[in-house]
């Protein structure tokens, strides 16, 4: 584990009951880096994020954040350590307003005023919808609230699970641009994404997961035109 490492995972084994999903996953995300975790459905991508967040206890392996072990600690402690997840289902407080959702993002940790300034800077649209009930918003806007809520606590490590899932191409483009801005501002991210073009566009490195193991990976630099090889590695 080098000193530049923000998140370091070694030999992670985890699953649901007797169903082992992760079979020795190892990866590292360095400070300020975006790493895309790619893989077919069922390869264990979301399970990796849920194990890091503490929703699943690993039966083996370690998870370190800035050289501190966060292996197997419950989600609220992982959050306090600085790891914040935006889940695929978003898990927003749908009957509450945008304001209430965002403020709840910093209820345990974080500077509320600073968080709101940052979120409105990334998502100006949310400041216009401040009093709107989240359940009445479109999928793309809800995704903005979910990412905004995660940013409210000024996380050290952001886990994004399918941020473009179910969104229109316009919103996918917008989410991509905002993620790139967040990276420029130094937010470290581990990204699970099915949209290969988006994932490779915004991330520094990629890792391919198959049957609960990292089977390939590399830098996303100079990948233009070679996506077919990655698709083959993922699915074949």
């Amino acid at each position: 584990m080098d000193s530049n490492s923000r998140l370091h995972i070694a030999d992670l084994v985890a699953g649901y009951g007797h169903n082992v999903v992760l079979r020795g996953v190892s990866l590292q995300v360095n400070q300020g880096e975006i790493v895309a975790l790619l893989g077919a459905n069922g390869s264990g991508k979301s399970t990796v994020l849920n194990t890091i967040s503490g929703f699943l206890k690993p039966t083996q392996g370690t998870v370190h954040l800035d050289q501190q072990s966060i292996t197997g600690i419950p989600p609220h402690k992982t959050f306090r350590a600085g790891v914040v997840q935006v889940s695929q289902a978003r898990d927003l407080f749908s009957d509450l307003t945008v304001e209430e959702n965002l403020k709840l993002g910093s209820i345990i940790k974080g500077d509320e005023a600073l968080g709101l300034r940052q979120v409105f800077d990334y998502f100006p649209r949310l400041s216009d919808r401040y009093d709107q009930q989240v359940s009445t918003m479109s999928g793309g806007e809800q995704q903005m609230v979910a990412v905004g809520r995660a940013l409210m606590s000024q996380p050290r490590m952001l886990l994004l699970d399918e941020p473009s899932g179910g969104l229109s191409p316009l919103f996918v483009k917008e989410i991509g641009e905002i993620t790139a801005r967040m990276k420029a501002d130094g937010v470290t991210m581990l990204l699970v994404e099915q949209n290969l073009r988006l994932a490779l566009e915004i991330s520094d490195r990629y890792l391919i997961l198959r049957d609960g193991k990292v089977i390939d990976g590399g830098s996303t630099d100079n990948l233009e035109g070679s996506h077919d090889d990655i698709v083959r590695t993922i699915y074949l």
Partner: protein
Amino acid sequence: MIEQIQSVLTNWDAMLPVLPQLVVSGIAIGMLYALIALSMTILYRATTVVNFGHGDLVMLGAYTLFILLPMVTFNITLESSALSSLVSFVPPYLVALILSLCVLFAMGYIIHRVFIWPILKGPHLSLALMAIAIGYAVRGVIRKEYGKEILQMPRPFPEQEFEVFNWGGIGTYMTLDEIIFCTVVIVMLLISYIVFYKTRFGQIVQAMFQTQRGASLVGINVMHHNNLIWGVGCSLGALGGVMIGLTLVLDPDVGTWTLLRGFAAMTLGGFGSLYGAVIGGLIIGILEKVLGVFVSTAFIEITCYLVIVLVLLIRPRGLFGQHATLRI
């Protein structure tokens, strides 16, 4: 039944003067139902579990006070005059009451942590059966100790009656019990309102009610807060139990009576709505009294069942239950 309703309509003028008394008595008993419904709603808001064993925990609250009272009233001689009785008996009573609420808080906390939390993600049927089983276990322990004996709860204050207003020469009265109970319940409602709508704790509960996973994602220790809320809910229920013990009698089976009224108030007010639970309790209390006198005494027992059936048929989300609005 139709004849009885016709009789009400024809004798309306004769019955009208007693209506204020019935409404006042209905509000007084309705306040108790409101407190029970409120305590059940608090549990529901935390874990979306309808605690079908709640009535027995309410009953346990009353019995705990009954058990603790002799332990804290040692060496105090009750005087004959009402005032000296009040002065000498109320402080130990308060101590016993506070201890009972603490015991029930601990019970609620432990019940959630040990029996509910491990199966919280399971099917609702399992949770309902677990709650019923806990309730029956509590009832069984009390029955084992006290049999089916009906006990009288010692009184902390004398039985007195006050005229609250007079309408055309016919007075409307409230007992001291009713006045104190109504005051206590109103204070509890105000505290609950402040805690659940104006504090950080209330925001956390609101978040957990929406989605427990979402609450975890913003760093809330869901299990700990659920434990606390179960403790608070059981304490509030115990307070209701003490009042029921004073109003009625101490009986191990009073839990079913309590649960039905609390559940009916919750159903009428709308699951998860704090003020709905209170208004539901008040409406049921008034309906019981008014229908019980004007139509048939049978309505005192069946009103809560009728309310549950009618609300579920006509407006399943109750008066103030939340309605999801989705944009497609």
